[in-house]
């Protein structure tokens, strides 16, 4: 009988520990890095999405007037460039895609189609301007990469850094050999997608010629969620543009997209300098 009790207690303990472990992706398996970005994805971004323009509406659904850059922290050089904007000249000189570059693309109303091009490359097509962005996981820009409208985007599933001491889970720990290790309790799940883009051709943050330069650094944070009211799935993006050439401080922009069941409404357009999309 006593043996049975011990066995039952052991079984219960085992079940309980499995239950607790199941609350997250903790444990030894969690410490092993995922084989590919696709298998390690924190969430699924693939599918069709449509932008819902609830903010900066008049800057996005219309082509704003020249010189209307109220919410952009331009420096004098940036204002000078913005004040010289000429859409006719852009269209004629083959620069009509300036407002569809990576720095401003997600502010342009339109639809996204996101797919995995391969296990470590997320592909984002837009119908507005018919652009393609490739988000490379684990890569760095090949040397001598020519600047392009979409630049080179390095992606990583972010937010998975070990917990810090303030969370009450303790700081770095050492194993018996003195190596710094991350304990399972300190491990966090990846939370968002962080994309860093460089090597862009000079482009526009808004349709009316508000500029970013070839030296601009674009950082984007993607997340998905479901809202409790409509049960729709949303993709939210926070964009940070750092460009000392034209901005006095980094510009932070937001955009969100509603998930669609299919390609209905997909409406490819060419780059147009004088149209909102």
């Amino acid at each position, binding site marked *: *009988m006593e043996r*049975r*009790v011990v066995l*039952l*207690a052991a*079984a*219960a303990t085992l*079940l*309980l520990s499995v*239950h*607790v472990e199941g609350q997250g992706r903790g444990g030894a398996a969690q410490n092993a890095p995922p084989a590919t970005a696709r298998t390690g994805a924190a969430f699924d971004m693939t599918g069709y999405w*449509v*932008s*819902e*323009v*609830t903010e*900066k*509406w*008049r800057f996005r*659904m*219309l082509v*704003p*007037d020249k*010189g*209307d*850059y*109220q*919410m*952009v922290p*331009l420096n004098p050089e940036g*204002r000078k460039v913005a004040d010289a904007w000429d859409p006719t000249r852009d269209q004629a000189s083959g620069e009509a895609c300036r407002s569809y570059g990576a720095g401003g693309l997600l502010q342009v*109303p*339109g639809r996204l189609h996101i797919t995995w091009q391969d296990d470590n490359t997320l592909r984002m097509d837009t119908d*507005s301007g018919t652009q393609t962005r490739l988000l490379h996981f684990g890569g760095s820009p090949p040397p001598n990469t020519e600047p392009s409208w979409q630049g080179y985007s390095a992606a990583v599933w972010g*937010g998975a850094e070990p917990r810090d001491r*303030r*969370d*009450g889970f303790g700081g770095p720990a050492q194993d018996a050999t003195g190596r710094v290790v991350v304990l399972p309790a300190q491990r966090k*799940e*990846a*939370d*968002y997608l*962080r994309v860093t883009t460089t090597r862009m051709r000079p482009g526009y943050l808004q349709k009316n010629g508000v500029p970013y330069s070839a030296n601009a650094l674009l950082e984007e*944070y993607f*997340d998905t*969620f479901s809202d*409790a*009211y*409509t049960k729709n799935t949303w993709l*939210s993006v*926070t964009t940070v543009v750092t460009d000392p050439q034209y901005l006095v*401080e*980094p510009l*932070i922009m*937001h955009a*969100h997209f509603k998930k669609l069941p299919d390609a209905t409404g997909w*409406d490819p357009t060419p780059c147009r300098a004088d*149209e*909102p*999309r």
Partner: protein
Amino acid sequence: MRSTILFLVLFVLAAAPASAQFAFAPSAVDLTGEWAPRVYNTHMDIGDYTGIPLNDEGRLRAQSWHPDQLDMPENLCRPHPIDIGLRVSVSQLRISTELDPETRQPVGLRLHVWWQEPEQVIYLDGRPHPSPHAPHKWSGFSTGWWERNTLVYRTTHLKEAYLTRTGVPKSVKAEVTTRVHRYGNLLTIVFIIHDPAYLTQPYIRASSWVLDPNQVIPPFPCEITPEGTIVPAGKVPNFLPGQNDVLRDFPTEYGIPFESALGGAETLYPEYIKTMKTLKVAPRTTTTHYRRTQ
């Protein structure tokens, strides 16, 4: 004996998640600290309802709003609910741990904003929301949970207030789901506002802050001037239906069809750009606008 042991095992298994449900949920990420706003406001003009999924009732209330209402004694120091308080340009934010006053155990997080000093406690200890009949407050009642590393909280029991500083209303029936993301030293807060009285669908908007450990949030002294000093005593400035004579200034200045400036769910999507081309635009009076960044 065997049945007793089995009962005990099942009890432990069943009780574990239940007890965890009512325990304080430790933070997945540290959100506490001083956060400096990087807020770029829209909706600063009367008659600018763009991008808001307003229904007819909300539109009617918004059109009756008069800016002089801000100068009425009862409104001079009226706090903003925190979802709008976090949207104004001086929304220095402090997030701290909220302790139970008796046990000194953490029960959630507290948000404090400089402008009008709204405070919001987000309970993370699993307590239920109060009865629907409980009093409504400026910052309502909020309970939160963690989704991956994102703090999500639901706020109910809000007083009637505004969605913008230009009189677009939010009703007493509104509730807000808020998502707080920390991206390194960047904080993004996404608000999902559900208001069955004045909106046809949830209204989503976001703002960001950057970590600023040395930020000092000063007090916000607010003095109420005596009744009659600015607005005549006993008067409530307003526009009767159809008599708002400044409503068309915004769409005229920016070349927007009047109907489009009034918002509505259909105006939020790319297809509406084509619709707008079929709508009448008032003759432009200017193409030079006030440059707030200069």
